[in-house]
């Protein structure tokens, strides 16, 4: 099952190395990982999407991450009300003949064309991973030349459905 974990970490050299190292050392499978600055200076936010077999594994992952000295907070937000977004750039073959046909697909997905070449288009799409998957499937018949995905970044919505749904990971 897919789980989304967000971490806040000290922005120090070697931190990302420590975290990715931990995943490989403990044989956990990362699907995607995104890193960037947070609202606090010298604190970065990391969003990891991991594929795990059961709850016990996710509990171990969060505990091991929490143990890292530079990790300030770890939250498994998979079961909460969240905003999760991913960006993809897709370079797809396109001729003047089929451009309007493609436009009809791009619009409902709220994707946009960011570059037009002689026989290619670069399309940018943002959204949840499922939406991006669906759009990529639609583009495949035209011939995808290049594809770049950022992986999901996410955090909690301002209002949660109910506080007792917040899953407590720490047993402290």
């Amino acid at each position: 099952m897919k789980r989304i974990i967000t971490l806040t970490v000290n922005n120090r050299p070697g931190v990302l190395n420590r975290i990715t190292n931990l995943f490989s050392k403990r044989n956990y499978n990362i699907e995607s990982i995104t890193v960037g600055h947070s609202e606090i200076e010298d604190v970065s936010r990391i969003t990891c999407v991991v594929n795990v077999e059961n709850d016990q594994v996710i509990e171990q992952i969060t505990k091991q991450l929490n143990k890292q000295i530079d990790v300030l907070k770890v939250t498994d937000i998979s079961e909460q009300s969240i905003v999760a977004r991913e960006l993809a750039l897709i370079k797809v073959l396109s001729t003047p003949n089929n451009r309007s046909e493609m436009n009809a697909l791009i619009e409902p997905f709220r994707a946009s064309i960011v570059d037009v070449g002689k026989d290619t288009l670069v399309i940018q799409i943002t959204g949840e991973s499922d939406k991006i998957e669906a759009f990529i499937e639609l583009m495949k018949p035209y011939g995808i030349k290049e594809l770049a995905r950022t992986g999901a970044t996410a955090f909690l919505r301002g209002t949660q459905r109910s506080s007792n749904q917040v899953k407590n990971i720490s047993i402290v």
Partner: protein
Amino acid sequence: MLQETALTNTKAENKSLSGSELLLQALEKEKVEVIFGYPGGAVLPIYDKIYDSKILHVLPRHEQGGIHAAEGYARITGKPGVVIVTSGPGATNIVTGLTDAMIDSLPLVVFTGQVATGVIGTDAFQEADILGITTPITKYNYQVRNIEDIPHIIKEAFYIATSGRPGPVLIDIPKDIATAVTEVPEEKEIYLPGYQPTLKPNYLQIRKLTEAVSRAKKPVILAGAGVLHSKASCQLKEYAEQQNIPVVHTLLGLGGFPAEHELSLGMAGMHGCYTANMALYESDLIINIGARFDDRLTGNLKHFAPNATVAHIDIDPAEIGKNVPTEIPVVADAKEALIELIAQEGKPPSHHEWLKILAGWKIEYPYVYENNANTLKPQKVLEMLYQKTNGDAIVVTDVGQHQMWAAQYYRFGKANRWVTSGGLGTMGFGLPASIGAALADKDATVLAVLGDGGFQMCTQELAVIRELNLPIKIVILNNVALGMVRQWQELFYEERYSHSKNPVQPSFVKLAEAYNIKGYVIESEAKAEEVLAEVLQNREPVLLDFRIDANENVYPMIAPGKGINEMVGVKQK
């Protein structure tokens, strides 16, 4: 007195110090007694200052020996072992020791030299990416980028190494940082918001545990090295006696509870005793204090303690529930948790039947071996050592059969008398670790119990033993083989002894003599009596080459993949 004041005044006025001076000043502030170090290009500026320092510096003959010695020192004192090595090969030579310290939770502060900041990343001479290499095998690591950070980083490193679950911390110091000069920076408080070890137990969990104890019919305490790290052996004894709960040890936890105590069941695990393993198997409540349910302890998890409620006290929350599902988790320092548990009021325990069964097993199924007049049995050697040192020596071992025999037959009465490489199982550990142990407790007699294989992995450290005149009695249980490998090949590989028998072996006595250490070959019990009576009287180092029965195996044994109740080699007395 006047002179002293004058000196401090001049110091205060002249506040500019080099990186190396800041480093040594910080070490003095941490009250470091001994540095295990090996000089080289990148640490020359640091060594220039060590030349004037009052701190004892021990020069191992290989960096690996240095870090193992520091581990031995840390195990006995609980204080961090300090290591300084140069960049590149110096740094990579300590990788085994770091891993060993990480898995056995030993506090170390390790300094590695590094090439100058300007050439980092250019594959310069003796450059190694030691931060990258050691990330998974250190509790934390630093590279000093600004000279002003040196005092604070060192202060933080000592704090991290010794607090919470102890572990090794590495500080990488580029050569130009060691030579640069700066004004002494102001002292800063340690602020680590992401690192707040939980020491006090949660009250509700303590209540839950107390209630579980009063209900339990077959409770057992599993005492790990966490008891030793938190110096909680007195509290463990008090609690066990108060509740009348028997105590089982892990390999690394030996000494946390007196072996001769009525409630002590001995060591559990792959080569643990029948009573301890069966107590875990039959138990309905296991109280794990500072052990990590290692696979060598539990055997096949499917068969581990099928009927037990598991309570686990550990300072590291990640250890709780990692291998064994745990109903009562207590994140806390072992000592704090035990103090709370002792203070609880609960119903008096009602498990007399259980204690009776266990007492019966203890008499019926002790460790047994067949003594034989024609050969010298390793078990006999350890029994003799135990008797002749009154169970009071520090015992340091290497890894293999001799390690298990030492754990089985040397009955520890006190904490911090046992130094062994548990989690990593590092051959070559024993001899250098005994040096650190001897320096940690200068009054103790140190028995370095080694196999002939492991001894040959770090023999060069004999030079240090001679140089410092340490009272280390090197006990080689020589079976002219890599005994544990040979045992597994005998049992699981149809006696195909692939590279486990050492056809060529030097004379260990002559080797010791080359280092000006006296040596004896001992082939019989009578000779052993005679030599031990002599050498245990003095404080001289000595090498004892015991020619033991080469076919002796370690029993009982839980074969790999088998359950804790499926021991082989159990014999009734």
